[in-house]
């Protein structure tokens, strides 16, 4: 049965998601993070995850990307003409969603040893089949916009400052026009000018129809791009 109304369909639909860490190396301690979590995010909107430190905001973002494996529930992602549940999808399907549909900017850059900054930023496009020269041109434009000095482009970012690494990470995350963007504190550790650039990039992504789910420590940044807040509340830990 297909619903033919013109109501917009969410780009990401989280259904009854549950995540508990079980720490076997620490006597099997159970750490419930969230349960019954439900959230729809539509194309063109930015939802800011909100909650105190340790509430589970990053855990939720990672679960959407299938980096963490939720215990139950669904993460339905519109992927081309199909819908993929990131909780039950095969590794093969998850990789396809990550390549084409879902971008994730983690809080810290995980550097690939000895790979140049330019190649790190261009890689997601090249993987999608973009000609290397075109991909590098896009990478150069993003690095310039994010004020990464040109002399750094041929170097691996391992030795860069925290803010420089974060900007390389952002450039990589914005290289492909993903329909869904997950951003974990993209403006943390950036100066005012770079923060403004990142907010511009997010606004442009929304304008082209991307669904953005972000964590913004900074209230001004949040106010500038978020259309609404979603509260992530700590689960009171139950006595076993």
């Amino acid at each position: 049965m297909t619903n033919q109304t013109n109501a917009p369909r969410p780009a990401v639909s989280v259904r009854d998601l549950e995540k508990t860490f079980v720490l076997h190396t620490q006597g099997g301690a159970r750490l419930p993070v969230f349960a019954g979590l439900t959230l729809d995010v539509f194309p063109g909107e930015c939802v800011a995850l909100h909650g105190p430190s340790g509430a589970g905001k990053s855990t939720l973002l990672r679960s959407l990307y299938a980096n963490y494996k939720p215990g139950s529930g669904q993460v339905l992602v519109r992927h081309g003409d199909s819908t993929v549940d990131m909780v039950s999808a095969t590794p093969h399907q998850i990789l396809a969603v990550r390549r084409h549909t879902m971008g994730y900017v983690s809080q810290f850059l995980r550097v690939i040893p000895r790979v140049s900054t330019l190649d790190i930023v261009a890689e997601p496009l090249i993987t999608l089949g973009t000609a290397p020269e075109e991909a590098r041109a896009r990478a150069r434009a993003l690095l310039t916009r994010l004020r990464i000095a040109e002399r750094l482009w041929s170097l691996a970012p391992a030795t860069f400052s925290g803010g420089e690494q974060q900007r390389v990470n952002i450039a990589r995350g914005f290289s492909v026009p993903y329909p869904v963007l997950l951003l974990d504190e993209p403006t943390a550790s950036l100066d005012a000018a770079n923060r403004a650039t990142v907010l511009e990039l997010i606004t442009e992504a929304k304008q082209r129809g991307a669904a953005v789910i972000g964590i913004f420590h900074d209230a001004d940044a949040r106010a500038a791009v978020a259309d609404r807040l979603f509260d992530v509340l700590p689960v009171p830990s139950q006595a076993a």
Partner: protein
Amino acid sequence: MTMIPQTPLLRVEGLTHYYGSRLGCRDVSFDLYPGEVLGIVGESGSGKSTLLSCLSARQDPSSGRVLYQSRHDGEIDLYRVSEPRRRLLMRTEWGIVHQNPRDGLRMTVSAGANIGERLMAVGARHYGDIRDQAIDWLGRVEISDDRTDDLPRTFSGGMQQRLQIARNLVTQPRLIFMDEPTGGLDVSVQARLLDLLRGLVSSLGLSVIIVTHDLAVARLLAHRLMVMKEGQVVETGLTDQVLDDPHHPYTQLLVSSVLQV
């Protein structure tokens, strides 16, 4: 946006091997897709090498099946085809990189001949072409052409390992098996070999099954991981899932024992 459905290159079903009454590996099943790199990690004696041997037609399994999608002849049930057929497949479509280069090289012939004889084994006859290709491949694994006529014995461990890789790749295989390819090498030599492997795997679109005890190597090369313990697969998933959110007690112990990967 078009998403091309792919068929697996390798399908493994319930693969089990016993050495007499001793368990090698038990009930291993998975699919491997073209261009995919699968890492196998786990404690010593957990059955990784046994599994790799059974997968690569070097050890008849006690039970289970290995189905391979060949270039020209459709799907082949590895242990139900004739021995010559299996040998041909190994020569033309597969490569095996051993931990010890001595197991994968012929130490008594030159570097160039080590590569050339693989070409001859698949039918190449023209001496000049063979030599040109050998030199080309030495270059691709960063061995200068003035070493072409030297014996592998005169090479460093890292160079021998690169030569072994060239010997395997010259026949343009689609699937490569590697057992601890960076084991026993200095850290800096390891790093260079890893860079080389990563580049070759992505530029040639190779499928790889790699056994390694080094989680950093796994993180860098593998799309997916299988974690083995006592002959069985205890956890499997995307590499980042297994390393960032390990579920099985053994995987958690493994991941927490290293500083940072």
